[in-house]
């Protein structure tokens, strides 16, 4: 059995004359937390969209735990253990917190929701419509929805966007702790470098739709090309 939980081979996607992804290869080992960084327009969200099945009209192939899932719908990928969150909060505003987590659990063989609610501190909000809870709680609910049923692979698109520094680091700690215990493989797109460096095992850097570099946090931080293209001298 392959040791890669999620693998994208020669992934390309074009929007008219613009190449958002240009033959990008990426492979994340089982249990690893991989950061995906790069400047705006680098192709990070597009890569997540291709891997998760949200994108259409792309080239290459996607493997999930060794199985080619390139032609599968997002729902079929979810049932095989791939989950994702979105750049903007993506919840069910009219449903209560508990109701939507329960609905999410039905899709993955009656998974337990009590634990995920506890882990993300949502128990006290169980009966409240999601549209009425704070933005920070909505972000945690968004993550909880993705983690119901303990997916094997979790694709996160800027989960800390819009959160305060304290909230971001709190979320990062919870995430790190949870995915380690549940052995979830994570591909994390995030602009907050504190979050990325605090929880990621390795980092991939995209620039103008191409892979620029890949390595441990220390390697990426020290890479002159990455510093020039994205991190700058402050990193």
């Amino acid at each position: 059995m392959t040791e890669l939980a999620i693998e994208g081979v020669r992934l390309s996607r074009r929007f008219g004359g613009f190449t958002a992804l240009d033959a990008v290869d990426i492979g994340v080992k089982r249990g690893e937390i991989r950061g995906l960084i790069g400047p705006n327009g680098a192709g990070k969200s597009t890569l997540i969209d291709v891997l998760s099945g949200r994108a259409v009209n792309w080239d290459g192939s996607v493997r999930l735990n060794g199985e080619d899932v390139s032609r599968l719908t997002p729902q079929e990928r979810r049932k095989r253990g791939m989950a994702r969150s979105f750049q903007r909060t993506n919840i069910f505003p009219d449903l209560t917190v508990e109701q939507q987590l329960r609905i999410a659990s039905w899709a993955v063989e009656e998974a337990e929701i009590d634990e995920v609610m506890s882990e993300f501190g949502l128990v006290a909000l169980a009966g409240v419509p999601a549209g009425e809870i704070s933005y920070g709680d909505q972000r945690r609910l968004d993550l909880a929805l993705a983690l119901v049923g303990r997916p094997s692979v979790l694709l996160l698109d800027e989960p800390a966007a819009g959160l305060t520094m304290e909230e971001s680091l709190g979320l990062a700690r919870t995430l790190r702790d949870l995915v380690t215990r549940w052995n979830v493989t994570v591909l994390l797109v995030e602009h907050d470098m504190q979050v990325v460096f605090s929880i990621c095992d390795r980092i991939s850097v995209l620039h103008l739709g191409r892979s620029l570099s890949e390595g441990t946090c220390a390697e990426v931080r020290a890479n002159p090309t990455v510093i020039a293209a994205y991190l700058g001298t402050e990193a």
Partner: protein
Amino acid sequence: MNPTAQGTLAPSRPRTANKALVVLLIGAAALVAGFVLPWIGFAKITLSLLAQALFDALLATSVGFLFLQNGRVSFGQAAFFGLGGYAFGILVARNLAGPELALLLALAIPTLAAFLLGLVVARVTGVAHAMLTLAVGQAFYEVAFRWRELAMGDDGMSFTLPSKFFGFSASRLQDPGVMVVLAWSILVLVLVSLTLFTRSRTGQIAAAIRDNEERARFIGYSTTVPPALVYAIAAFVAAIAGVLQAVYNGYIAPQMFHWSLSGFALIMSIIGGAKFVIGPAVGAVVLFYIKDVAGQFAEYWPAIVGGILVVVTLTMPQGIIGLAVKQWRRRQRR
């Protein structure tokens, strides 16, 4: 983030079961109450108007249910109302089927048509959806209006009920007292069934799709079938209303398909509260009462309805039931 500080989860299953039991008990009480209606001493004309109000309530419930579960506004629900009435009337009038089979087909045809239509239409949102349903509804109207061989075109067609219907004297169904009890009973059963549906797994998944279709796909659901199923159920309810009206009047006409009927049903939903299963039916009864009171101003009726709609929209955007629920919750908090 600390899980220990968050308390414990309340057990939800017994609570849900209790709520279902309450719904069933209220439904049973309402069902019994319906049998009292003809004995209150209403004049025949009042009972007849009440029967019409109950047909309207069923159609409004259909429109409201579509909004509640799919979040879609339809101006074409009268198509299924008309389809039900026409299918029954034509099959009976032309002796193509016995009344029992005609009833079955009159309910099945609109339901199936709506399901198939729903597979496509449910993907369209907002104004485009409203316009699409309007176009579909009016297409049916035009066919019924122009195709004289079908059911006498714009003149409409009378038909005689067979002597027996499910073993009972069919002519009794045209007695206002009998029809009121029957329509009331059906309305109660429909409201109870729809309420239970909204609490069911399929109903909750449909509500999730309504709320956020993309997220529903990414938590693992097909987002095509549940909304189409809601369309089918809503059409089934509209078809029941259409068949009841056709049976009661012994007459079908193209107006049964007209968009204005869907529009009035939508207004009833808004007045009663479209976010509640019972809201549209309440709206229909309230409008019926106001219409009765304001009978002497009948020619200004559309203007009166418009005025009521403006007042309700501005003062109680969740409708009458929404306001009642809000007040009740406020009292609970005190």
